[in-house]
Every structure is written in C-alpha cells, then in structure tokens.
C-alpha cells in the first residue's frame, strides 16, 4: 500500500486523457527513463526507443491504474528494466562476442572544448558497461536513479542485504577499473 504516491494525481489526469497532463507526465518521467535505459544499455538510440515503449504502456495503463497497489515510479522502472533486459538478451543472442559497445566510439566527433568532459564521461560509461548485469542494475537503480535500497531491492526481486552486496561489488569493481585511468586532481 502506498497512499502518498506523488504521481497518483497526475496519472489520474493522464487516465482521463487531459492533454496537459500527458505532456507533464512526459516532462516529469522521460529524463528518468533515459537515465535508466542509457546506463543499462549503453546506447542512446536504444534508450530512446525503450522510453517510447514505456510511455506507450503508460498511456494504455493510466485509465486502469489502481492507486495504493504500487508506486507508479516503481512500476515505471519495472517496465523499463524488463524492456532493457529484452534488448540485452537479444544482443547476446545475436552477437555474443559483441556485447560490450565502446562508449568512446563517438569521441572523434566531439569538439575540442568538450573532449575532456566527454572522455571522463565515457571512461565511466565504459567501466559501467563492463560490470556484470546485476551489479550494473543495482548501481544504476540505487545511485543514479536515487531509489532507496528497499525500492531497488524490490525491483530486482532480492533482499536488501543482497542488494548491498551487489552494490559493494559494483563499486569495488568500478574503483579497480578506473584506478588505472587518469583522474582529475581539481577536487583533491
């Protein structure tokens, strides 16, 4: 039960087909969906496709939503994660040796002024993409999506201790992967 779902009122208006509510829902949730999907998939285009597919489901489900059964944001993450899993599985089946994209592939096209920032961005993206899927999922949900440990664990279908264990391994692995790369000293 959750009576204080911050999205419930907006979702009800979406369910009634209010055009302004539809736009407000897109503006409220699209960024979070892209954030989740791009970090899970490592590909912007696919992340945008996932976001669009999620919203198609939102439009279908909104009139039938029953408040109190689940938080809408949790449901949204569940749908997006399932779509990401489908794509990751398809990717493995189609090209098992080509699972990890090189997120630095587009750096050659970046203007010089953005190059350094993009390099930092991409080395973290690459390290994240190389994590085992469950570790990456735990970190994306808990750190980037800022879900509570309980919400992230529930989404992943595991206990909180198991989630914390995944997070510890993910952060250790990332630290090790990034250790050999140049780090900024401006915050030392």
């Amino acid at each position: 039960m959750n009576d204080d779902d911050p999205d419930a009122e907006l979702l009800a208006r979406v369910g009634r087909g209010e055009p302004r509510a539809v736009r407000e829902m897109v503006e409220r949730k699209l960024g979070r969906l892209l954030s989740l999907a791009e970090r899970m998939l490592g590909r912007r285009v696919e992340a945008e496709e996932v976001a669009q597919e999620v919203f198609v489901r939102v439009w279908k489900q909104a009139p039938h939503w029953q408040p109190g059964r689940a938080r809408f944001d949790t449901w949204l993450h569940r749908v997006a994660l399932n779509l990401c899993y489908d794509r990751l599985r398809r990717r493995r089946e189609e090209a098992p040796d080509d699972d990890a994209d090189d997120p630095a592939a587009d750096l050659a096209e970046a203007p010089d002024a953005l190059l350094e920032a993009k390099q930092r961005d991409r080395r973290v993206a690459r390290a994240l993409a190389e994590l085992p899927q469950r570790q990456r999922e735990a970190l994306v949900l808990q750190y980037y999506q800022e879900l509570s440990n309980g919400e992230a664990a529930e989404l992943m279908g595991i206990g909180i201790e198991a989630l914390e264990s995944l997070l510890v391994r993910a952060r250790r692995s990332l630290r090790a992967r990034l250790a050999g790369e140049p780090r900024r000293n401006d915050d030392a």
Partner: protein
Amino acid sequence: MTPERFHALLDACGADLRRWPEAERDAARELLANGPPALRAACAEATLLDRDLDAYQVAAADAALIEGIAGAAPSVVPEAAYIAPIAAAASAAASDSARVETTASVAPSAAAASSSAGGPRARPWWRGAGFFWPRAGWALTGVAGAVAGALVVSVVLGDAGPAAATDWQKRATAFIDRGTDWSEE
C-alpha cells in the same frame, strides 16, 4: 551504529549520506562527527568514486522526442461528441470519422509506416464518390423518424423518458470506450 556497519554502508552507498538508508543517516552523521578519524578518511576515498560516477551524465531529451511521445498518447474524444443524443444516435457516419481520427492519433507511427510502405493511406469505404451522401440522407431521415417516434412514446408513457436517456448514455460510453479506452473516469 558500529564502525563496521558504517564501512559496509559506505562501501555500498557511497559517501553521500542522502543515499544511505533513511533510518541510519542520523547515526551515521553522529559517528562521522565523533567517531574514529579513519571513518572520515574512508569517506573522502569514497567521494572520489562518487565524483567519477557523477561524471557520467545522460543528455536531456530533445524536443522532438518529447513531442513524439506526447503525440502518441490517445487524444480525448470531446465530450460534446457523445453528449448530444440525437447527433450521436443519428450520425453513424460521423462517429466512424471520429474513430478514424482517434486511431490515427493513438498510433501515428503506425499510420505513418503504412503510409510510407503502401503509398497513400486507403480511403474509408464510405468516402467513395456518390456513395455516401445519398445513403446517409436516407439513414438520417429514418433515424430522425425513429427518434421522433420514441419521443412520442416516452411522453405518452411518462416515466419511460429518463430510463431511455440513461440507457443511451450507457451505450454511448461503451462505444467511446471501445474506440479509445480513454473515457473511463
């Protein structure tokens, strides 16, 4: 909170206490302020990884994506289209037209895909030249006669009017639902 639990949460959640379990934040702050200096050093170390993670930013959605997603939502059928009983009962052709428009707004990409793949979109059967309007005229005449007859009967029978109106509203709502699935309250 024990130093061991502090380290466990630091390793799992990073140095920003806002990402820690809410129930343990106050105890963590207390321990950080008054506990062993090694805890603060461990926090500083964890902060470095947090900053690396924060460097991975996802670009905001562009306007075209926002428009595309919002535009794919089913549009609402205007209330007037199913409030006026005579118009709704008499104009099957008009409601067909509304359904076509609603379908296009629900799945613009599908409509576009069929358009690009198969040339111009197929015209509805009733838009054939010289076919629709004569028949619609006869239909309207017939339905208008039926409505007039029903009105006479309802006046004669007294309380039959409200029941008939209620029944019509149910039918109209069901029709709208079937087309768009967006009219439920």
